[in-house]
C-alpha cells in the first residue's frame, strides 16, 4: 500500500488506460480485441457503474417523501388488486395464487425492464458517449444496476406476501440465486446487443416492447401451467417460449414447486446462444455506436 501510494496519488487516473491506439476497422481480430478491452475497462469502473445506477433511482425520487419506496407501494397495490380479481376469475385459492402471482409479476417486471431499458442503454447515455471516452459496457451495466435496485425494493412485497401466506422456504430456495445470476449476465449481454441495434434502428425499441407485451400473455406469468393440461397446442406456447424457462428457474425454487434439470438445461442453452450472439454483435458494432447515438 505504502509503496503504491506515491504512484497512485498524483497519477490519479492511472487506472484508466494511459495509452490508446485507435485505427480504422481492420477485421474481426481487432474487433474482438477492442470489445474485450471494453469489458475489462468497464469492470475496472465497477464503482462508477454502481453509483450511476444508484443515482438514476435517487434522482428520480429526489424530493419525494417516501422516495423509491413508492416502487414497493405501487407494486404491492398492483399485486394485491390483481390477485383478488384473478383468483376469482381462475377459480383458484387465493392462498396459493397470491404468492405465485406476486413472485411472477415482480420477476416479470424485472425481466421486462431489463429488456426494454437494455434497448435504450446507449441512446440514453448519448451525452456521455459523445462527451468522453468511456467503455460502452458501463452504460449496459448501469441499466442492469438500476433495475436490480428496483427489484430489491419490490422484493419487500414478496417477503411480506410470503410471510402472510405462510409460504415455506427451505435450503433449496437458494437455487434461485444462481438463476438470478444468470439473469444478470443475460441482461447485460442483451443490453450490449440490443442497445447497439436500437441505437442504429430506432424502430427496434418499439418492436421489442410490442413483443414483450405479447410475451407477457403467452408466458405463464399470471396463470399457472397446470391450466394448460390437456391442451396440446397450447402447451407449445410453453415449450418454445424462452421466457418460460428463464422465469421458471427463478420462480420454482422460491415457490417450492418441482423444477426439472431440463428446465435449467434449456435456460443455459438459451443464455449461451444469447451471450454468443451478443458478443459477436457487440464486437461488430462497438466502434460505430458513437456515430449512431
Amino acid at each position, binding site marked *: 500500500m505504502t509503496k503504491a*501510494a*506515491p*504512484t*497512485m*496519488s*498524483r*497519477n*490519479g*487516473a*492511472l*487506472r*484508466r488506460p*494511459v*495509452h*490508446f*491506439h*485507435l*485505427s*480504422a*476497422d481492420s477485421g474481426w481480430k481487432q474487433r474482438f480485441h477492442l470489445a474485450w478491452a471494453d469489458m475489462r475497462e468497464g469492470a*475496472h*469502473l465497477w*464503482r*462508477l457503474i454502481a*453509483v*450511476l445506477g444508484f*443515482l438514476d433511482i435517487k*434522482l428520480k425520487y*429526489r424530493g419525494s417523501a417516501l422516495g423509491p419506496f413508492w416502487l414497493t407501494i405501487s407494486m404491492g397495490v398492483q399485486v394485491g388488486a390483481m390477485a383478488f380479481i384473478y383468483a376469482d376469475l381462475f377459480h383458484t385459492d387465493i392462498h396459493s395464487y397470491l404468492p405465485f402471482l406476486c413472485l411472477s409479476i415482480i420477476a416479470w417486471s424485472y425481466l421486462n425492464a431489463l429488456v426494454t431499458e437494455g434497448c435504450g442503454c446507449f441512446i440514453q447515455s448519448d*451525452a*456521455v*458517449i*459523445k*462527451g*468522453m*471516452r*468511456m467503455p460502452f459496457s458501463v452504460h449496459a451495466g448501469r441499466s442492469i444496476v438500476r433495475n436490480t435496485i428496483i427489484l430489491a425494493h419490490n422484493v419487500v412485497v414478496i417477503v411480506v406476501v410470503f410471510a402472510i401466506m405462510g409460504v415455506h422456504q427451505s435450503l433449496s430456495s437458494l437455487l434461485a440465486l444462481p438463476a438470478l445470476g444468470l439473469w444478470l449476465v443475460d441482461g447485460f449481454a442483451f443490453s450490449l446487443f440490443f442497445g447497439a441495434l436500437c441505437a*442504429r*434502428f*430506432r*424502430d*427496434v425499441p418499439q*418492436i421489442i416492447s410490442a413483443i414483450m407485451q405479447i410475451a407477457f400473455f403467452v408466458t405463464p406469468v399470471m396463470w399457472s401451467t397446470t391450466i394448460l393440461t390437456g391442451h396440446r397446442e397450447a402447451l407449445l406456447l410453453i415449450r418454445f417460449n424462452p421466457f418460460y424457462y428463464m422465469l421458471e428457474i427463478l420462480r420454482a425454487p422460491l415457490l417450492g414447486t418441482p423444477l426439472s434439470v431440463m428446465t435449467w438445461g434449456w435456460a443455459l442453452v438459451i443464455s449461451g446462444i444469447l451471450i454468443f450472439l451478443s458478443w459477436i454483435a457487440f464486437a461488430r458494432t462497438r*466502434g*460505430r455506436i*458513437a*456515430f*449512431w447515438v
Partner: protein
Amino acid sequence: MDRLCTNARPDRLLGLNMMANLTASNVSIGFPLYHSDSRSLKKTILGQASARFGRDNNNRPVVQALHDISFSLNSGDRLGLIGSNGSGKTTLLRVLSGIYQPTGGTLSAKGRMTALLDPGQGMNHQLTGRENIRLRGLYLGLSVSQTQELVKDVEDFSELGHFLDLPVRNYSSGMTIRLAFAMATAFPPEILLMDEWILAGDAVFMEKAKKRVEGMVRHADILVLASHSPSILLEWCNRLLWIENGQIRGDGAPMRILEHYLPSSAFKELAKAEAAP
C-alpha cells in the same frame, strides 16, 4: 507525501520520463447521415430489396467530416485548431479524445488525457456541484482519498464557495464552465483537449485558467484548443492547424497561418495589436 503529490509526477520520480505524444496518421472520419427517415428498419429492408434492382447497397449519405488528417504532437506542443464553422474542429477533438473510432487511418495517444468538449459533459445537472465532482472522481477511476483530493482542489480553484452545494442546473453558464474546467484540470492531464466554449469565462477566471494551462504546458504537456478567436489562439498556442472542409489547409506557426486565414485588414489590425504590447 503531500508535497510530493502536488509538485512532482511519479513517472518522473520513478525515472520513467514518459513523454506525452499524440499522433494522427491519415485519420479520416466518414459520418453516416442518418435522417430520422433513412435510419428506420423499414427503409433498410426496402433498400435491400431495391438493391436487387442494381442499386448500390452502401448508397447511404456519408459526410466526410475529416479527410486524411496527419500530425504529431509532443510534450510542449500547444496546438490551436482554426477553421470556419462546420470545418471539422469539434469532430477532430472527438477523434483525438478517442470517442470516435476513425473510419480510416490511425490515432495513437500516450499520456493521460482530458477532453473538455462541452461544458456539461459528464455532469448531471440535477446533482450538486460537489456530487458532480465525486462523480467525476468515479469516471476517472479514482480511489476514495484521491476523490477527496479532487474535491478540495476543485473547491479551491473554482471559487464557487457555497454554490458547490447547489444543483448544477441553478448555475450560470460561467459557473458551470468554472466547475468543468476545474474538474478537468485538477489532476493535470498530460494531454488537454479543449473546445472554444472555455473562452466564455469572465476575465478574472480566464487569467486563472490560462495560468493553470501554462503551468501544465511548462511541465511538458500537450494542449489542443479549438477556437475562432485569433487573439486567444495567439496567446495560448505555439502552433496552428487550419482545417477547412475536413482537410488540413495549413499547419505552422500561429502568425504565419493567421496571415492566410484572416482577411488582410483583420490580420493587419491583429499584427498591430501584437506589436504594441
